[in-house]
């Protein structure tokens, strides 16, 4: 019997869908890059078919398929395919000075919001009800709505008093039908009402977008007759089930950068590095510390909306292979032709000057393609654009390196040719083999993770950390992590206010590579 030791990683980006197969030693044995298709499925199908074809009969050794995608982020940024969401906040009269979606870009709010209501309910920090739950008001509000796809519910202090949101979900399903899509803020984020509410609305708006991707993956895996477990990569570099991914798409929003950063570091052999992933529309820079992406808990904006869930700490610059160069003004981006580069770029016979064309002046980045003869104004604008690219990338690297110029810079992504061989703010510049598919490699090497929380009196803080660490490691092993390789990757402490005794909540995350499955260990 053959070993079932192969992992297939897929990354669906805005421009390309990449796929790789890694063997049991972690070596890339097959890789491909296909354009992302409007229906998503086509790109995934083509990518998976490609890499399977290149390993022939060994396809039966593929035991797991992991997918990471920035599809959800792109849908928000481009306002594409979003569902209409009705927002119910519980807690009035508290917080009525700040209506839901305060601070959203108006166009996005107009597309997403089917209506909002601030109704009685919610709790104070100590669990005291702010006002009675306005059940009639909830029914009246939803009955008065025109068309909506989903309902988001955010109760004040629902993270510590969760029962009322659950009751409202039941009420809504009882009133509107059991298949009504209801999303609760307690499942999405921590305290911080406006940010948690924003993330809950975005999550609800992304349901159809996410479902299309998970369905596409299931369909293609079935078509190919693979007997493999399927996973989605999430923001923190660990894996989640497909059901979960469809329900909580915002938790996959950062998986693209997380995979890119981890995949690039893995391929370069460096545990501490700055990674720049140059795609079709943006360059995303992140920092790898000890092999893991640096994360940020600071509130951050997604498509102009402020949210507060944990994400890899990524700096995005509007520079990509498809970035449009305006010949008249000399402006570089932020517009991009995205995946239409192979039709619209000058190098491909199109009429839009892009950064790929700028790079082609110095030598074609695409084998077998040459630029047509260019008017001198166009040629000079493209040459100037390259200098702008170098300046912007250098400034971005400098911000991430905290002034140290000796940290290696790992360049990956389809537009990596835009990064020059020397940058004043970077150390050695590395371009690892298979760097063009680092995202998919990152998905394929994704970790199994576990998180455990422990509340304890302040004096027992250290033993609480120890206990939570043990529990997190046990959960990670349960999720499939190799017991020999699992480690603590994060310790988060928050004080618990208004307790009689000073109390701390420690939250510990453990993660490790999936234990390699051997024939003997696999039953099905």
């Amino acid at each position, binding site marked *: 019997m053959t070993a079932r030791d192969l992992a297939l990683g897929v990354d669906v980006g805005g421009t390309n869908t990449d796929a790789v197969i890694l063997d049991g030693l972690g070596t890339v044995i097959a890789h491909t890059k296909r354009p992302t298709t409007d229906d998503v499925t086509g790109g995934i199908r083509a990518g998976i078919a490609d890499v399977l074809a290149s390993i022939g009969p060994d396809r039966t050794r593929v035991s797991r398929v992991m997918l990471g995608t920035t599809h959800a982020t792109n849908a928000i940024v481009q306002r594409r395919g979003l569902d209409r969401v009705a927002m119910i906040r519980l807690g009035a009269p*508290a917080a009525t000075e*700040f209506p839901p979606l305060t601070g959203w870009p108006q166009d996005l709010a107009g597309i997403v919001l089917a209506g909002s209501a601030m109704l009685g309910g919610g709790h104070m920090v100590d669990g005291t009800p702010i006002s009675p739950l306005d059940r009639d008001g909830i029914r009246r509000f939803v009955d008065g709505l025109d068309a909506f796809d989903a309902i988001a519910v955010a109760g004040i202090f629902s993270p510590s008093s969760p029962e009322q949101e659950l009751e409202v979900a039941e009420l809504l399903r009882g009133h509107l039908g059991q298949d009504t899509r209801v999303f609760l803020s307690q499942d999405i984020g921590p305290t911080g009402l406006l940010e948690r509410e924003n993330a809950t609305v975005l999550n609800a708006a992304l349901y159809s977008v996410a479902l299309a991707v998970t369905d596409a993956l299931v369909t293609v895996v079935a078509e190919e007759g693979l007997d493999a477990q399927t996973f989605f990569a999430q923001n923190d570099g660990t894996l989640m089930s497909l059901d979960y991914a469809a329900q909580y798409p915002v938790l996959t929003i950062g998986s693209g950068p997380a995979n890119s950063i981890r995949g690039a570091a893995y391929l370069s052999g460096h545990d501490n590095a700055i990674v720049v992933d140059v795609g079709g529309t943006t360059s995303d820079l992140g920092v790898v510390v000890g092999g893991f992406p640096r994360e940020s808990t600071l509130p951050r904006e997604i498509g102009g909306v402020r949210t507060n869930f944990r994400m890899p700490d990524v700096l995005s610059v509007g520079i990509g292979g498809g970035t449009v160069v305006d010949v008249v003004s000399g402006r570089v981006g932020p517009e991009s032709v995205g995946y239409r580069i192979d039709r619209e770029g000058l190098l491909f016979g199109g009429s839009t000057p892009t950064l790929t064309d700028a790079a082609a002046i110095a030598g074609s980045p695409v084998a077998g393609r040459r630029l047509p003869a260019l008017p001198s104004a166009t040629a000079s604008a493209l040459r100037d654009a390259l200098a702008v690219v170098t300046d912007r990338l250098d400034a971005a690297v400098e911000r991430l390196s*905290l002034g*140290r110029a000796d940290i290696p810079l790992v360049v990956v992504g389809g537009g990596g040719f835009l990064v020059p061989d020397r940058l004043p703010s970077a150390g050695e510049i590395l371009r690892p083999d298979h760097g063009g598919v680092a995202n998919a490699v990152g998905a394929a090497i994704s970790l199994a993770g576990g998180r455990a929380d422990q509340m304890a009196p302040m004096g027992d*803080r250290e033993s609480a950390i120890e206990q939570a660490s043990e529990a997190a490691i046990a959960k990670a092993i349960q999720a499939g992590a190799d017991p020999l390789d699992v480690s603590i990757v994060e310790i988060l*402490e928050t004080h618990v206010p208004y307790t009689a005794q000073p109390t*701390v909540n420690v939250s510990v995350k453990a993660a490790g590579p999936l234990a390699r499955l051997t024939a003997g260990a696999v039953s099905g």
Partner: protein
Amino acid sequence: MAQTSPASHVAERITEVTADDIAALGIGTAIFGTGGGGEVYGAQTMVERELTTHGPVRLVSVDELGPDDVVMLMSGIGAPTVGIEMLSSKGQIHALLEEAERLLGRPVTTLMAAEIGGSNGVRPIGWAAQLGLQVLDADGMGRAFPDAAMVAMNAAGVHCDWAVQSDVVGNITVMKTVDLHWLERHARALTVASGSICIGAHYPMTAETVRGAVIEGTVSAAIRVGHALLNASDPVSAIAAELDARVLMSGKITDLDRRTVGGFVRGSVTISGIGEDRGRLQRLELQNENLLVLEDGEVLVSVPDLITIIDTETGHAITTEMLRFGQRVSVLAWPCDPVWRTPRGLELAGPAAFGYDLPYIPFEGAAR
């Protein structure tokens, strides 16, 4: 007597606050918050919206106040961790103003921030826009402090006659206490009963009583610091230059020990130097605000001088409740307003007022 703050003599005064200044004001007040003062983003969106709706707010100096003017402080009270979740209700400030004017028997014309640090430095602008009032370019602290008694007016011997407090469900309470320490005690107890967050109005003053009793120019100074950060390629140096502050160290947070006692965050944060500061270790003592910086067993800076932890990359201030293990930060320190270095000022807000048995050694800022 209180004197002009160190930054206020540098540039021209700002006479009007527009919606375009609020991002800068939010950044500046977070920096003046010295770790406390609460999260400013929510306040910022509210104020931007109010200024867009009602137009700019007039910012006046003490010299511009006339005999008919009544200045009143308006501020949020309570736990910042609660304030980001249970936000204020519409009409909460109108109820406060109505009650204040009933007690005074005459209209309030001017709002002043109790503290320029944090959200309390931002929100009075939005409240003034909603209520149709002007704002005094001054505040009571020149930073953030945890106690209502720690205000320049108290150091100057100006009495507070009454205080009114309103909560999110509509309860209104008037407090006439014998002094600010009792006000603090009563206001805190009342705030816990109201769900740990309230809005209060207190310290009614006239043009006469305000003079020499407040820290002037601080609203303009906060806006300038914010603009300096927004326009800089190296935010940390730009802020330090604008404030005349010193960057004590850059590093990452390697230990955090925080707890909440009676509504106050207490604890310490340890920062290990990176880059040029590798090998150095600094510990900051926290009590809502950053109070002490220690290195090698020595106190480098102590309250009432200002200590702010900022994000090394962005320059944005990080409040004590937002500190996280592994964050890359720089520690910034600069001298307090001279009022806090007087004997009465040190009695109210010196190291001993926070329970530290330390002599106060004035921090000299950028110039050594």
